C-alpha cells in the first residue's frame, strides 16, 4: 500500500482488499522454484490431466490391437513392460511405460455421433433435455479445487477448430467453468494491458470492491456473490499467467516434450498441475479417420506416444504422478471394419481408453473384445462406470450427490460403479 493515497489507505475496506491481492501477487510466481511449496502440494492435492482424443481414436491402432485379423489393419502389436500386455506398435514409448497405465478395453457407450458421444464421455451420462450436466473437469474442479485458489480450477485447451468444445460446468455454474484456450497458448486477458499501470489497475479494483460491499450488504444473493468472487480472483489468476509461458522452461525440458503443439500443451499442463490446478484438459483434434485411418493414426499416435510418455516421465520424476491421474479418452472408438477409403468409421460399442498414475493399478487391463473387436465379451464398461472409477482413483466419493433444484443428481450415473480391477 505504499503507493496509495492516505485517504484511501485509512479505509478498512481498501486495506483488506489490498492485502489479499498483494498476497496473491506473490503466490504463484514463486511457487515453481520453491521446493517447499512443491512438497506441500504433493501432500495435498490430487489432480487430473485429460488427454482428449477428439474425433475418436481407433482402439485397434492404440490399446486393443488385432493384428492378423481381417479387422486388424496393417500395424502390428508389441509387448510392453507390463507382463502379458500388448498394445499397437504405433505406441512404442508408451509400451515401455505401461507399468503406470491401466487399459480399459471394454467401453460400450452406444452413442456414435460426435456431439452426443462427446457429451456422454465428458459428463459420464446421457444428455437429458432441460438439464445441463457438468463435465468431468467441472466436477473435479469443484471437488478438488480450493475455494481461495490463486490458480484456475479447470483449464481446457482445444486449439484445432474441428469439433471444438469448450467444456461446461452445467448446473454447477460459472465458478467451475473452464478457463478456455482456443487460439493462443496463453489464456486471454490474463495479462494487465500496457495501457494501464499497475497502481491504477489495483486501485480501481479496490474502488470497485467498495461499491460492491455497499450493494451486497443488504442483498444476499448467489449471483451477486459470484460476481464478487470472480473479480476477487482476477489479480491472483493474473499472477498465474507465467504458468502458461513455456518459454520459461529450460530448452531441454521443452525438447523433452517435443515440438508439436499437443506436446507443448502437455508441458503447459504439467506446469499447471504442478502449480495446483486440479484439472487440465488438452484436446488433440482431430482423429476422425473416415479416410486413411492408418495414415492418420501413424501421424497422431506418434504425437500421443511422445506427449503422454513425456508427461508420465516428467510427472514421475517430480513425484507428481502418484497424485496426478492422466486420462486418455475420446468420444468413441472406430469400427473394426475398414472402409474402401482405408478408413474406420464411428464406433461406440467396443472401444478403449486408458488411465495412468494416481490411484491406478499400472499394467492392468480390464475387459475384453472378441477376436475381431466387434463387441465386448468381458467387463462391459459404460461411461458412468469409467467416471466412478476416475472418482475413486482420485479419492472422490463416487456416490456423492449434487442437487439441481429439488432433484438430487448423483455424480455417478445410475447403475454405474467403479472398476476395482484397475484401481490401486
Amino acid at each position, binding site marked *: 500500500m505504499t503507493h496509495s493515497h492516505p485517504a484511501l489507505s485509512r479505509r478498512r475496506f481498501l486495506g483488506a482488499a489490498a492485502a489479499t491481492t498483494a498476497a496473491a501477487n506473490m503466490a504463484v510466481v514463486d511457487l515453481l522454484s520453491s521446493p517447499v511449496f512443491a512438497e506441500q502440494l504433493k501432500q495435498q492435492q490430487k489432480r487430473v490431466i485429460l488427454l482428449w482424443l477428439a474425433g475418436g481414436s481407433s482402439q485397434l491402432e492404440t490399446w486393443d490391437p488385432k493384428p492378423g485379423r481381417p479387422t486388424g489393419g496393417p500395424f*502390428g502389436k508389441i509387448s510392453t513392460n507390463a507382463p502379458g500386455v500388448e498394445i499397437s506398435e504405433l505406441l512404442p514409448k508408451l509400451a515401455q511405460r505401461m507399468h503406470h497405465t491401466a487399459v480399459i478395453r471394454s467401453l460400450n457407450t452406444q452413442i456414435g455421433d460426435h456431439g452426443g458421444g462427446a457429451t456422454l464421455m465428458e459428463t459420464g451420462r446421457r444428455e437429458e433435455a432441460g438439464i445441463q450436466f457438468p463435465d468431468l473437469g467441472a466436477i473435479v474442479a469443484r471437488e478438488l479445487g480450493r475455494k481461495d485458489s490463486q490458480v484456475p480450477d479447470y483449464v481446457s485447451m482445444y486449439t484445432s477448430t474441428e469439433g471444438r468444445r469448450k467444456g461446461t460446468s452445467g448446473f454447477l455454474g460459472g465458478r467451475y467453468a473452464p478457463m478456455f484456450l482456443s487460439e493462443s497458448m496463453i489464456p486471454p486477458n490474463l495479462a494487465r494491458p500496457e495501457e494501464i499501470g499497475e497502481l491504477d489497475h489495483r486501485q480501481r479494483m479496490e474502488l470497485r470492491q467498495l461499491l460492491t460491499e455497499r450493494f451486497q450488504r443488504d442483498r444476499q444473493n448467489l449471483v451477486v456473490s459470484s460476481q464478487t468472487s470472480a473479480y476477487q480472483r482476477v489479480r491472483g489468476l493474473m499472477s498465474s499467467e507465467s504458468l502458461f509461458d513455456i518459454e520459461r522452461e529450460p530448452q531441454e525440458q521443452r525438447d523433452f516434450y517435443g515440438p508439436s503443439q499437443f506436446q507443448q500443451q502437455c508441458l503447459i499442463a504439467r506446469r499447471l498441475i504442478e502449480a495446483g490446478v486440479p484439472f487440465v484438459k488438452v484436446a488433440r483434434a482431430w482423429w476422425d479417420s473416415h479416410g486413411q485411418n492408418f495414415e492418420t493414426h501413424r501421424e497422431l499416435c*506418434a504425437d500421443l506416444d511422445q506427449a503422454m510418455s513425456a508427461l508420465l516421465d516428467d510427472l514421475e520424476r517430480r513425484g507428481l504422478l502418484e497424485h496426478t491421474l492422466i486420462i486418455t479418452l475420446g468420444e468413441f472408438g472406430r469400427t473394426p471394419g475398414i472402409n*474402401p477409403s482405408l478408413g474406420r468409421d464411428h464406433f461406440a460399442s467396443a472401444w478403449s481408453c486408458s488411465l495412468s498414475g494416481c490411484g491406478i493399478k499400472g499394467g492392468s487391463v480390464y475387459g475384453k473384445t472378441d477376436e475381431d473387436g466387434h463387441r465386448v465379451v468381458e467387463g462391459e464398461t459404460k461411461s458412468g462406470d469409467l467416471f466412478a472409477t476416475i472418482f475413486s482413483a482420485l479419492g472422490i466419493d463416487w456416490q456423492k450427490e449434487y442437487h439441481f433444484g429439488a432433484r438430487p443428481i448423483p455424480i455417478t450415473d445410475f447403475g454405474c460403479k467403479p472398476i476395482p480391477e484397475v484401481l490401486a
Partner: protein
Amino acid sequence: MPADPTQLKKDREFGLPGIAFCAARVPATERFYFGSSDAKVYAIDLADEKPQAVPLAEDGHTSYVTGAALSGNTLLTGGYDKQLLWWNVESNEIVRREPAHELWIRKIIASPDGRAFVSIADDMRAKVWSAGDGQLVRTLEDHQPLTPHHYPSMLYAVAWSPDGRYLATGDKVGHVAVWDASSFEKVGEVEAPLMYTWDPKQRRHSIGGIRSLAFSHDSKLLAVGGIGTIGNIDHLDGPHRIEVFDWQAKERKLEISNNELKGLVECLAFAPDGTWLAAAGGDHGGFVAFYKVENGESIKAEKAPMHVYEFTFSDDGETLYTIGHGKLATWKLSPA
C-alpha cells in the same frame, strides 16, 4: 493397333480376397501376382476359364502386402511386416527373406531391364536390390523422416523411367527426388507441396502425400499423383491431382485437378508415344482417367468399381488391368 483411350470401357471384373494393394503381371500373359490385406500373395490367371486367386505359400507375410514386382521367375514382395520376400514363382517357394526396412514397406518396383528391384518404406529410404542374388545394392536417402509439422513422414511413391536411366521417389510432404539409376546420385528434385494436405487449423493432420510417380518414355517428364486441397480431411474428399514436371528444367508443365472423380491418384503411366497420361485411384469408389500430355485436357474418365491401387497395360496396350479394393477389373482401349 495403338490403344485409344477415348474408347475406354470396362470389360471384366473379378472379386478378390481382401484389399489388393499391389500387383505384377507376367509379361505376355494375363497372369498376375498380387499382394493383399490378408497378408497373402496370390496368383490369378485371367486366361483361365474361371479365374481364381490362389494363394502362394502360407507362411509368407504377416501383415498387409503392399509391394510386388516381378523379374523373370523372381517375385519380390514386401509389406507392413517390414520384410521383403523373394519368391521363385516356378516352384512357389520363398527363396529369401530379408528384414529390409525399419518401418513399413510401401511399394516395390522392378527396373525395366529386370536386373534390380527398389523397395521404399516409411523409414524414408529407398533400397535398391540386385534381382539376381538379392543383395542390397544401394540405399537412397533424401526424404525427411519428419514433416515440417513434426509428424512422421511417409515415403509412398517410386518410379523407374522406362529407359532405365532414372529413378524417382516421392514422399508425403510433396518432395520428389530424382536419381541417376546407375550412379545412384541425386540428379534432381521437384516439389508438389499441395499434395501434403496438412490442415493447420481445423483438424491438424494430413492424409495426402505423393502416392504415384511416372516418367515419360523419353524420361523428360515426370508426373506426380496425389490429392488436391481437401476441405474435410476426415475423408478423401478432394480432387484427384496430377502435376507434370519437366524435372530437369524444374518447371511445372501441367496441373490437373479433377473434382468430378475424387480421391488419391495411386498410379500413373504415360503412353508410349507420349501423347497421353493415364491415372487411377479413388476415394470410397475408384476411377480411371486419361489426360492429354499436351495440355492436360481430359480425354476420358470413368468410375472404377473399386479404389484402384495399381494398374498395368497389356503388352499391346489395348487392355488396362486395374486392381484394388476387393477387385480386379479389365478395361478395353481398342477401337471397337
